[in-house]
């Protein structure tokens, strides 16, 4: 076993363990921290694929900003009822785990099918080889984002702005935490 395969299996185990923790833990904060573990491990997987920029962005945006906010908000609220709702009932729990299993099975199946189809078509180069040449550099990424797909990129920005404005508008209307009255 080389160092790279060891790293891959180690990180894959961390990702799966973190993701399972998100679903199986009863305490929402533990779940959120499990999700953080998954995010960080995914960033580390990006590093082993030499996609350093993606890894850094994953760390800054998801692990560093989004999840910190999640954890903060979870800690701020009193979550006794939610903890009960999460952990109540064996049948519901089994249903939840079952549905998660079906979803992950679907995803894995789709990937496997795509891979087999790719091989059947005799696609040039595996996924790994394209990743190491193109994704690691920032220039191809920037060219894709700001030249080839600039319209959809800007559209996504507008969408995010709409979401932010909408959230503020909703929370300021009736009964929200920022209610005017």
């Amino acid at each position, binding site marked *: 076993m080389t160092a790279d395969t060891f790293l891959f299996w180690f990180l894959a185990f961390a990702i799966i363990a973190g993701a399972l923790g998100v679903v199986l833990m009863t305490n929402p*904060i533990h779940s959120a921290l499990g999700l953080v573990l998954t995010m960080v491990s995914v960033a580390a997987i990006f590093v082993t694929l030499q996609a350093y920029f993606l890894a850094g*962005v994953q760390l800054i945006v998801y692990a*560093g900003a989004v999840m*910190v906010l999640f954890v*903060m908000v979870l*800690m701020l609220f009193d979550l006794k009822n939610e903890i009960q709702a999460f952990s109540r009932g064996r049948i519901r729990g089994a249903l939840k785990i079952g549905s998660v299993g079906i979803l992950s099975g679907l995803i894995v199946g789709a990937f496997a099918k795509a891979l087999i189809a790719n091989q059947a078509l005799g696609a040039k180069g595996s996924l790994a080889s394209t990743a190491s040449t193109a994704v690691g550099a920032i220039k191809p990424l920037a060219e894709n984002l700001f030249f080839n797909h600039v319209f959809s990129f800007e559209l996504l920005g507008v969408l995010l702005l709409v979401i932010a404005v909408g959230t503020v508008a909703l929370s300021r209307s009736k009964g929200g935490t920022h209610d005017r009255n």
Partner: protein
Amino acid sequence: MTSMGTTGFEITVNLIKTVLVFLMMVQAVPILVWLERRGSAFIQNRFGPNRVGPLGLVQLLADAVKFLTKEDFVPEKGSRFMFYAAPVFALIPAAIAYMAIPMSVPLKLEGATFLIQGFEVNVGIVFVLGVSSLAAYTILMAGWGSGSKYSLMGAMRASAQIISYELALGLSIVGVILIYGTFNLTDMINAQHGALSFSMFGYTVSSAYLPNWGIFYQPIGMILFFAATFAESNRLPFDLAEGEAELVAGFHTEYGGFKMLMFFIGEYGHMMIASGLMATFFFGGYSIWNFTPQQVYEWLYGLVGSELLANILNTVVHFLSYNLKFAIFLWIFIWVRWTLPRFRYDQLMDIGWKTMLPWALANAMLTATLIFAGSYFIF
């Protein structure tokens, strides 16, 4: 950094370097604590620790023994696992991020080249920012795991502050990235060697005395970056997380002994990253005022007359140059802490969101416009 290394030799060297950089960081902390206590005493017209050893230097050894022999206390209402995990995790982001900062010219020894840094990352800035942004979790974990109101309030304040100032921090170095056109810290330092000279609008400006450092290209970015790093490392005037008058000691209220010391090392680690990045972005990294490493090497070669020795000396001289700048910034951190009072919470948020963020944005836009105009329009 392509991987852990391909041969056994490379892997061993990388491993040793990792351990060395980590030890350097940890060993710098007692000196910094001593400097902080003596420095604060000097600023406040006191003596500071001066009894144990010469100038009180052995005080820290005595403190370490005290820390190690303290009672291992865990609050009853808290979460035991998180309470123990938080101080351990506090060390990791600071240590890993510091390894990406280059500290000297690569050492060339008969065919082998050793980089004087933990590991080289092609997108150094993104890596350092990404890894050090994970520090917010240790604070949150400590605050939650303590099961105390003061701890939780301190953790909330600290993480809100870190998130708010991360934006200003990230935007303040966009100008730097635009000027040098790279994310790589080594390339940035290479661009700052020698005397100041640049061309714009068809004119070439050069100076015989000033160095080619980033501060002359990005003065606003420098100020914003330095201010934001104070907030990121929870130092005064931004240490709302601690706020002794309101929160006892913030997120580490319940911590004592060695666990407290680990938080300390983490905080100083963030100061070190900030100082290293300040030197790298705006003050030429390891480069020496007005001279390129090649010039220094030739001068040393003329002095000792041996290629091997000149190479080693060149690395050592640049390493000292880097550490001099590094130490100056660390001293400024301490100096500011004992000079300025703490902000109010609303002032803190106003400075972050309404002052620093717009200025950083404006700086980035101005830099982009000037770079574009300076290279396309010739008068």
